[in-house]
């Protein structure tokens, strides 16, 4: 694992040097807002009475269900948006030095949806100070399944292979769930409650952009960018009619 990671760094470094001019000029950006169409359903909150520590942490009002989180104007959080087609073949991107952080706070994974690059450090924190068990359920990468006792505040791992979105669960607290996707490139973005995503640093060209929601599936759109313009591309999700 460490080996591949170093090789990626090296490759990344080379690309950065050789492709410097192109990187400098090409800074096209795709941005947009994801909104929920129609009347949002009422989802029942997470029941975590089983874990008294977390139950207390959430105080009087129970932890909200994470499946559908909306901002005002029904803007959707927890949407993964990424460039799914059109990236130059054979080109590689360095994995950023700073890790992707997953915190376990109040028996809830923060963030709920996250993207990570191949070989990038995945840092798992335990702010609850109780026993958690992080269990990733990938199909391609090898599963990471390890207990994190109260006193172990931090663990790290990496994902050696690119893989589409898969789930992360806690074998101690069944309601805890997060989603992660492993990319070879940095052109992905996850919306927060304002529903906004931004994918920047793209070369000129036409791309396919995919947006994903854990329950409502995926949507794709194709955009063509030139030079360093900024294109807008919105997405709308709706509960499929039965």
């Amino acid at each position: 694992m460490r080996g591949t990671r170093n090789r990626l760094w090296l490759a990344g470094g080379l690309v950065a040097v050789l492709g410097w001019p192109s990187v400098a000029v090409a800074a096209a950006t795709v941005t947009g807002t994801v909104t929920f169409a129609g009347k949002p359903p009422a989802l029942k909150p997470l029941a975590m009475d089983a874990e008294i520590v977390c139950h207390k942490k959430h105080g009087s009002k129970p932890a909200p269900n994470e499946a559908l989180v909306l901002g005002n104007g029904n803007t959707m959080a927890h949407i993964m948006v990424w460039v799914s087609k059109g990236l130059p073949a054979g080109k590689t991107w360095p994995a950023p030095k700073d890790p992707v952080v997953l915190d376990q706070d109040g028996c809830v994974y923060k963030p709920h949806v996250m993207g990570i690059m191949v070989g990038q450090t995945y840092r798992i924190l335990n702010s609850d100070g109780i026993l958690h068990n992080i269990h990733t359920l990938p199909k391609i990468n090898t599963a990471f399944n390890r207990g994190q006792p109260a006193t172990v505040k931090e663990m790290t791992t990496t994902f050696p292979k690119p893989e589409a979105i898969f789930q992360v669960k806690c074998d101690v607290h069944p309601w805890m769930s997060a989603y992660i996707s492993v990319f070879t490139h940095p052109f992905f973005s996850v919306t927060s409650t304002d529903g906004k995503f931004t994918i920047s640093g793209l070369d000129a060209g036409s791309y396919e952009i995919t947006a994903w929601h854990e329950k409502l599936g995926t949507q794709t759109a194709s955009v063509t960018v030139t030079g360093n313009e900024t294109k807008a591309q919105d997405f709308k999700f709706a509960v499929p009619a039965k």
Partner: protein
Amino acid sequence: MSEPVDVAPKPHVAHEVHHEELGFWRKYVFSTDHKVIGIQYSVTGLLFLLFGFCLMMLMRWQLAYPGVPLPLIGSLLGEARMPGGTMLPEFYNELGAMHGTIMVFLGVVPLAVGGFGNFVVPLQIGAPDMAFPKLNMLSYWSLFLGGITMLGSFFVPGGAAQSGWTSYTPLSVIAGTGQTWWLIGMIFLITSSLLGALNFITTIIQLRAKGLTFMRFPFFVWAQFVTAFLLLLAFPPLEAAGVMQLMDRVAGTNFFLPSGLVVSGQALTNVGGGNPLLWQHLFWFLAHPEVYVLILPGMGIVAEIIANNTRKPLWGYRSMVYSLIFVGFMSFIVWAHHMFMTGMGTTMAAFFQTTTMIISIPSVVILTALIISLWGGSIRFNTPMLFAVAFLPMFGIGGLTGLPLGLNIADIPLHDTYYVIAHFHYVVAPGTIFALMAGIYYWYPKATGRKMNETLGKIHFVGSLVCMNAIFMPMFIIGLAGVSRRLFDAGAAYAFAQPTMHWNVVSSWGAWTLAIFQIPFIFNFFWSIRKGEKVGDNPWQATTIEWSAPSPPPHGNFVHAPQAYRGPYEYSVPGAGKDFVPQYEA
């Protein structure tokens, strides 16, 4: 593990110079001499006992101080096991599983059966060697390979087996790579035991000295004889089970995987239709006789030493022998008392708890006979005798606390609590291991021609006796409070376990102190090879045939083929010239 070289050879040289000339390797490493092999087994066994003991001491830290970083050693074990010195649950499970496996299959069995069996039995029956010397060597090296595989499994990704020494399915089938190594290792160990067993049986039946009828056997020979049969007939089912679990893990079969199995929220895609209980049946079909494999040789050793040091014949030798045979036979049809919790119906539960109660009777007969043998003896309290005598109450506690577990109703609340741990450790640790220690002190002179140091021996004994009880007595309390075994934090997460937490501290300090009291033994063991008091062929004025051979015996053991003229324990015979009449003297 070339240690045997340090232990065995030196004395041998003298005798074997004017014997057939063998190269170093043939003589000390790939030797076919039962004595060298016996010593190889013993040293291997002792080293693995030490290793398993170290695993346990690590666990004891976690149990006494859950989540507290272990100073010094902790950080050495790496991020995947003890990040910042704090033990991860997975690593605790590795330690638990491997402690059990190593202590049973690589520690006690090699020492009790492989070691003492190989070294003592042919001598006691007046045989020149084992019936199949090459096979004997093969079974040692098969054990050796098994041991290496087990040790290697600690370094595979995901670490060693984590499903407990019982490797219950389906958990073990979906477990990490370490489990596969465990299975392969087990297949080596089983092969080793099978070859050894048939070798012992043949040797005992065929190579008995002239006049040594079965009822003139020393009790130890009887013990090894029955043990060999247990190994021979109980191990193959586990081998079959191991092969099937290997198939499940490697070839994707479903012998032990039921349909619709869901692992952390995801349904498995296998076809299922297997039966997880099948594993438990096949496992315990071995593992219950295995319990007697662990204890019978110990009883044999104790019987020898008690008869010798009370200077009295064993009380009720025949009843002891018949009990032994009966125990061996019954041990095959009691296994499911380990499975009362698997939802078997009342009929079979009744059957198995009945057989279990029945099997306890012969064990009690043997123990009682040994205790009565002490009566009116002029006892010599040398180190072997101290260990032998201590064996009696320790095994007594272990045995009697087992009865509630044999009864369905009592077992259900006690099952898988620390009570069970305490029970079987009293049988095996202060029980069997004390007997084995006694045996080492007792036959050391035969192996080396020198006695081990008595003072160091007594220190070793007293320390061990106290510590053993300090370790295991608290576990009864913890268990009766309802704390489950195999909890990586000794139940720190549960309110009901809080009142018992301090007992874990006592137990742990007992364990670490026990380690300190083994140092005099280890020192004594190596020091005495050269510096120990020189003794003759029969330092204990014993009656059995092994003492007629020179110490250490040459290749081929006896100068003249010995002959048995009488029973094994003719001590203090009225009117006899001395207080013992050896079997081998006309």
